[in-house]
């Protein structure tokens, strides 16, 4: 029951009707049932994982509020061990066994299974809850059902945002209501999220998939187009999901955190990861890994180590999200870690240059240049994310790199197709919207615009979905683990 499928729209309509008809005090329970039904639609057996994580989080969460420090620590350790250990085992055990078996010369048993859809996300939500209750920044939830709703909330269970427990739980049940203003905002987010997913991402996907499938034989131009298209495919796929999740939650009065903020307009890779791309995950790593490791308050070497540790773990977390489990994700994480190192190493230099040449430092052209540089660094890292193996990623990089000097001459002769033209047009449209949004939020612009313009924009989105949407139930990239 994907967000972009008819059964989901029917499910949503039924859930909304029940929600509105019920008294407010029991609405949370209806939403819990709906969330369980939604998750069960991806396989009833998946519920065992969901219930196990919710139960562990609930039990260990209560114990972390104990007066005895030993009990609190043990509850946290056991809770995190079960949730994150389970995630690690389900994600990597079979892969690691495949890798080391030839070296050990023995046959290792296999799990023969992977974690269910969304596990990476709700395991991190449960872990965040446990750490927050241990730290005292979130009161332990005594009602197992409400905690289960936080973990299983259907709009976010498959691919986030990795919402924190405290802001979510304080909305339940007090704010569970159908508010026309919130619902209107929610519908707008749902339409825009669907547009990004079904129109932009899914129209770019065939070009990307086609080129990566034949990477060793594809022309460098084809690979280059695929790499650019993939950057926008994954952005629209994932941020589209987040927009829909946030919009769906608003229909029920629940506000979720922002997860994307025009990431390809970041001026540094540090800004990209900390404030613009998958913000909820970035904050998770900042709060529960980087700072506990010492963050930036330790010595220089330790700080570099902490940064690399965060990105390598982030790479491991992403393994399995869409393109299998392999070394490519480690390479992707490490490459982004190197970007951060480079940023840290040159930060002093760029600050001094900025002080000496304030006019240039503040110029719009330099900003554009930095945005382009950041975008292309991220673009290179996406090759490792998308490729199925390291050799395939290196093949793509090598073939594009070798052909770069000749590309300007090759481009006019390249047989561009309608798919390329549609993809490029959609990317330009997205960039135009994002640039406008960066200068002044689109929702403010629309609210201030004449009704004809505002409605035209929404009709364009809605009929874009009808005319150009790829509705053949393409799954979301980030929910495939």
């Amino acid at each position: 029951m994907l967000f972009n499928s008819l059964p989901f729209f029917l499910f949503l309509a039924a859930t909304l009707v029940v929600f509105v008809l019920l008294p407010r005090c029991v609405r949370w329970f209806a939403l819990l049932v709906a969330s369980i039904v939604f998750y069960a639609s991806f396989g009833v057996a998946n519920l065992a994982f969901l219930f196990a994580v919710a139960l562990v989080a609930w039990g260990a969460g209560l114990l972390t509020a104990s007066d005895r420090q030993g009990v609190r620590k043990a509850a946290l350790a056991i809770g995190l061990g079960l949730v994150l250990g389970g995630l690690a085992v389900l994600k990597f055990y079979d892969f690691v066994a495949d890798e080391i078996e030839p070296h050990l010369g023995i046959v290792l048993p296999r799990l023969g299974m992977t974690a269910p859809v969304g596990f990476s996300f709700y395991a991190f939500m449960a872990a965040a809850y446990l750490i927050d209750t241990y730290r005292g920044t979130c009161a332990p939830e005594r009602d197992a059902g409400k905690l289960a709703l936080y973990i299983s909330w259907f709009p976010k269970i498959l691919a986030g945002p990795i919402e924190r427990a405290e802001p979510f739980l304080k909305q339940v049940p007090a704010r569970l209501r159908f508010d026309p203003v919130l619902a209107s905002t929610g519908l707008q987010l749902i339409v825009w999220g669907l547009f990004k997913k079904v129109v932009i991402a899914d129209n770019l996907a065939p070009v990307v998939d086609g080129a990566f499938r034949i990477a060793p034989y594809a022309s460098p131009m084809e690979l280059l187009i695929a790499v650019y298209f993939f950057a926008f495919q994954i952005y629209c796929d994932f941020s589209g999901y987040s927009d829909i999740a946030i919009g769906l939650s608003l229909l029920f009065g629940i506000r979720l955190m922002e997860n994307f903020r025009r990431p390809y307009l970041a001026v540094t890779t540090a800004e990209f990861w900390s404030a613009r791309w998958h913000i909820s995950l970035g904050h998770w790593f900042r709060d529960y890994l980087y700072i506990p490791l010492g963050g930036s308050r330790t010595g220089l070497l330790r700080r570099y180590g902490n940064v690399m540790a965060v990105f390598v773990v982030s790479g491991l977390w992403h393994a399995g999200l869409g393109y299998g489990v392999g070394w490519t994700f480690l390479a992707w994480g490490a490459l982004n870690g190197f970007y951060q190192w480079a940023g840290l190493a040159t930060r002093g230099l760029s600050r001094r240059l900025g002080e000496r040449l304030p006019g240039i430092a503040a110029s719009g052209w330099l900003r554009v240049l930095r945005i382009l540089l950041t975008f292309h660094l991220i673009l290179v890292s996406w090759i490792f994310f998308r490729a199925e193996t390291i050799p395939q990623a290196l093949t793509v990089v090598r073939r594009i790199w070798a052909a770069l000097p000749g590309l300007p001459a090759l481009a006019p002769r390249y047989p561009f197709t309608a798919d390329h033209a549609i993809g490029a047009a959609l990317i330009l449209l997205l960039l135009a919207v994002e640039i406008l949004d960066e200068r002044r939020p689109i929702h403010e612009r629309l609210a201030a615009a004449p009704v004809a313009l505002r409605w035209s924009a929404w009709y364009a989105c809605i009929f874009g979905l009808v005319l150009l949407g790829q509705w053949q139930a393409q799954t979301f990239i980030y929910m495939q683990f």
Partner: protein
Amino acid sequence: MDRVIPIRTEPRAAAAIWFVGIGLVIYALLFAGSEWLVHRNGRMNPIYKIDATRGDVDWVILGASHAMPLDFDGFNDEMERRTGRKILNLAGPGTGPLYNRFVLEYFLSRHRTRNLLYVADGFAFRSPMWNEERFSDAGLLARTPFHPDLAALLARYVVREGVDPRALADYVTGFSKLNNRNRFRRDLWEGEASFDRTFRPSPSAEKKRADYLYPPVDDEQAGRARYFAAMAELIGIAARNGAKVTIVKMPIPLRFKSLLPGEAAFDGSLVALAKGQGVSLIDWTEAMPDPGFYADTDHLNRKGVTDLFEMHLKSVLSGDRSPLPF
């Protein structure tokens, strides 16, 4: 933590109604435009062909894609010229007897035919994929012109035959037509582009094709029984409307034939059906074993249909040599 900021304008019921109303008008206009494109670019869709036909015909050809080369690149006109018969080929890619019956019912609501040539394939008589599920195929729906009586017929198939109601919803709303990426292209089946090609035999391609045609099914026996019953009903409908039915099996390369599972059992059931219904059955499966007659793994190319017509089909269509009924 950053929160989504709600819009500042309070939605009003009247504005919402206007928004939806204008949206419906735009949708209706787009629907009309898509319908116009369906007619402008129509060619292979059986419903389009029925619409485009004037008067009654001598032969209707039904079946799956193996029957389609008979209408590629003007070959149907050639057959009409050579036989002096009016022939309408209503075969569709991957369509089994249930869908064929649906097409025949619609045809008979508007025209008459004296004969029906049914091209039978084993794969089409075992899986819902080639029957009930074909009704929901977006590619097929995108090229099917809208008619209220066809919608009513489809509704009957939803109720009686278990066709997915989404197929009806799609057809009535025209969604697949509006959502058709190939809306500006002519309705040509991909096989027509390779009509003049000669297939170079490839075991892996043949295996892949056979696997595609014969997907795993829950209960093969039940499937066979269901679709043979659909076929019997199709024959009955034709007979009640005065059409004489001839069932044929089209030629396929020998090696491809050997890959088809349960073909002998299917042949047996087909013979029994033909005998039971009193219709003719001609098996040309092994009539043209040479791979040079084929454009791909199992579809005749121009040389193939030309030879088939000259050697076998012409006499059947022209009525010179009517096959004997069982």
